């Protein structure tokens, strides 16, 4: 809770700070749309990485993996001339296969995930450079819509409305469930806040986007993926067991939880999210290129860590990881606007990552990295 508040306050503070430093270019509708579009690839990866890290593992291959999946899709579209649905299905199949391979190697011969996915990182980097050389341009309108498209203003508002309705439904179910089982109801103000804050935030976001080009489709894709994964994490047996496995492997085993099956599941999920991120990244660039996805896995891991996910497993929250990604994206965007060279931006980002975790430790939060 404290961490959520801290991040939620830090992000606007960063915007305001850089807004003034840059002479007023950060807090414009256009820049906000760009910032959120930029955020999506890392955000989608961080969503899946939360699961991987909660399970006590890590996935270094997803950056290269998303580049490969995007490049394969472009190649199937423009060199093999297959129809778009076929290429998408092939991409999903490949993503699942990659996840299964990672999961199986981690689960059965018990190779550390670090090694397995480091191997993946090397192999996929080579493969994507082979496939996407020369660059494969994409003109398919439907495909590009995912990366380049914007919702019409009314569609944006409809999404905000759906968000408010959906949240309201969930909160109502929560209240009803608590009453049914005789549990003390949550304080009204908390329910109200839990409904009001995201609903208002969504509406504000849509309004800002509509003042520019509209809500980017890729942001909608990221939010939908995160919502699904969050539900999976906190409302299903699978999610519960993954977190239990990461928190205490033996306890999970003694409770009858199959460690190999859940390891496979986690890496397949990560593969599917890498596929989605690959589509978005490729569509944003309008091409399958050799350097798509480079280092994205590291940014995703950093986002999770800033969001409070422990490297030892057992903890993590999908929304918090997204906020971690947004925090990093905001800093990068701000430095860009101020005109700090990209070389220096990376140095600063590295310092900030360690400093944020160190601050956490000093402030005495019980946190095991």
């Amino acid at each position, binding site marked *: 809770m404290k961490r959520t508040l801290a991040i939620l306050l830090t992000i606007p503070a960063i915007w305001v700070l850089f807004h003034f430093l840059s002479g007023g270019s950060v807090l414009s509708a256009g820049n906000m749309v760009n910032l959120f579009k930029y955020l999506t690839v890392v955000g989608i990866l961080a969503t899946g990485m939360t699961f991987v890290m909660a399970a006590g593992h890590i996935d270094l291959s997803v950056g290269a993996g998303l580049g490969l999946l995007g490049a394969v899709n472009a190649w199937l579209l423009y060199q093999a001339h297959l129809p778009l649905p076929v290429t998408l299905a092939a991409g999903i199949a490949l993503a699942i296969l990659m996840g299964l391979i990672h999961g199986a190697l981690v689960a059965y011969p018990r190779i550390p995930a670090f090694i397995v996915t480091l191997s993946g990182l090397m192999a996929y980097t080579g493969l994507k450079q082979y496939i996407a050389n020369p660059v494969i341009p994409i003109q398919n309108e439907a495909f590009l819509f995912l990366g380049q498209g914007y919702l019409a203003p009314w569609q944006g508002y409809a999404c905000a409305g759906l968000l408010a309705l959906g949240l309201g439904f969930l909160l109502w179910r*929560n209240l009803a*469930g*608590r009453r*049914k*089982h*005789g*549990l003390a109801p949550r304080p009204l103000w908390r329910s109200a806040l839990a409904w009001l804050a995201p609903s208002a935030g969504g509406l504000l976001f849509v309004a800002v986007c509509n003042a520019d080009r509209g809500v980017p489709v890729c942001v909608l894709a990221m939010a939908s993926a995160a919502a699904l994964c969050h*539900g999976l994490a*906190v*409302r*299903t*047996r699978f999610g*519960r*067991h993954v*977190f*239990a496995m*990461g*928190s*205490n492997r*033996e*306890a*999970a*085993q*003694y*409770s*009858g*939880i199959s460690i190999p099956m859940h390891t496979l599941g986690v890496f397949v999920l990560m593969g599917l999210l890498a596929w989605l991120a690959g589509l978005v990244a490729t569509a944003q660039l309008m091409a399958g290129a050799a350097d798509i996805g480079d280092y994205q896995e590291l940014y995703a891991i950093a986002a999770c860590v800033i969001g409070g996910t*422990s490297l030892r497993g*057992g*903890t993590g929250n999908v929304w918090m990881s997204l906020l971690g990604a947004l925090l990093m994206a905001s800093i990068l965007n701000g430095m860009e606007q101020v005109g700090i060279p990209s070389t220096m931006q990376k140095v600063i980002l590295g310092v900030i990552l360690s400093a944020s975790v160190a601050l956490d430790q000093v402030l005495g939060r*019980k946190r095991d990295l």
Partner: protein
Amino acid sequence: MTPSPSGDPIANAPAAPLLEVRGLAKSYPGVKALDQVDLQVRAGEIHALCGENGAGKSTLIKILGGVIPSGSYQGSFFLEGRECRFRGPRESLAGGVNIIFQELALAPDLSVAENVFLGREHAKGGWLDAHRMEAEAARQLAVLGMKDVAPTVPVRELSVGLRQMVEIARALASPARRILILDEPTSALSLKESQALLDVIVGLKSRGLGILYISHKLEEVFAVADRITVLRNGRSIETLDRRDAGKAKVISLMVGRKLEEVFPPRSPRPTLPASAYAPNSAGMSDAPLLRVRDWTVPSPVNPQVDILSGISFDLAAGEILGLAGLMGAGRTELVESLFGLGPRAVKGTIEITGRPYHPGGSGGPARAIARGIAMVPEDRRRHGLFLEKSIRENLTGACLERFSRLGQFIDADAEADTAARSLSEAGVKAPDAEFTAGFLSGGNQQKVVLAKWLLTKPRILFLDDPTRGVDVGAKADIYLLIQRLAAEGIGILLISSETEEVMHLSHRILVLRQGRLAGEFAGGAADPETILALSAGGATA
């Protein structure tokens, strides 16, 4: 299942026992962990299992819990008359065996309710029914008298005592529960927490569960148990009704008559005064080699509890001081904390030949070694050896600076020379010093560990169960070595899981009980019954 009224479990017992163990036996290479165990637990009774360290209690639990799978042991056991062949913990759990291990099996990042239902969550249409689980967990906690623990709190934030309760709540929420096994459940608990736990356990009898209660603490056993089975050397010796059995009887059964092993004749106590608390005699300063006063060490898992409190003793040069006590009495913690491996928040004073010494802190064992202390740890494979490395690298691992130029560059010839000499002195049977340590037999490994510490030229030597898992021949060698070292003037603090060993080798014996000094004997002045009685709290000295 007929829940028996609390009055007389024997008269009201159903015909078939809830759990019946027949002729269980389990061997590891060179060790017979279980020999012949027969046991019956009835519904609604608390059945205590008593035995010395190494009597086979943990092996028995592991078999019942499926940790040792069916097929790798001899004999059989039955639940409600049906034979059980568990291939893993899952099957054991499904069969109704709930074990509360000493090391808690909870996921610390999950909430209390989530842990209570872990692996058997309630769900509706694929989505977890969190409210139902929270409500049921709350009810279960209330039954156990933990009304003020919110089911939504992460287990990480609970005290060890409360975590133990969560495990019990978890066992009670299990639909298949028949047998509840508690393995030393109070070992990390404060007195108050222990009492609360015991009350809960007694309360569970009326639910028709069979409870197998394993504890070293005889007070606890006599407070809660209906019947008591004594294990010794892997055999079930006798099952007694609590009302017919006195503590003395149980203790004598636990000790039994062991085969007299070949101990060397006790070496004469070196130039020592009658009491080591008195000033020392000729040639040396008045101060003893090691003087420990009011040594108090908090538990690393539960800082409110002291695992050692107010320990004071002296160790003279050339003296073998035996430390007796049951597992969990704090013997290992005592030598580890003196060696600088304990928690930081230790209290008390230590002097080595009159000069103050502070273990712990950033220096850790390096400071202890510099002051002439060496420690042969209890777990040789984990703490004593670099198993993948050669004997030479193991031998010189704690004294490398002696063969290093400029403090860094190792003089390979000097190292090899020292290693070879040390090897033959210690009588290690190995082809050469380049042999991989992990491939040596237990006895030879232990000789390597001893030789490694002797190379640091210690004045004070802590031996924590130096003959554990060692065959008889090597034991005799190690006994002779211990006596030779003492004769050379090294002060030795000796811990052993075998009371006999401490009795035969030591010049003086200190008995630890639950972190406190419970008594002191002169070597040869005590018999094992007296020591065990003092250790288990069955008598006072």
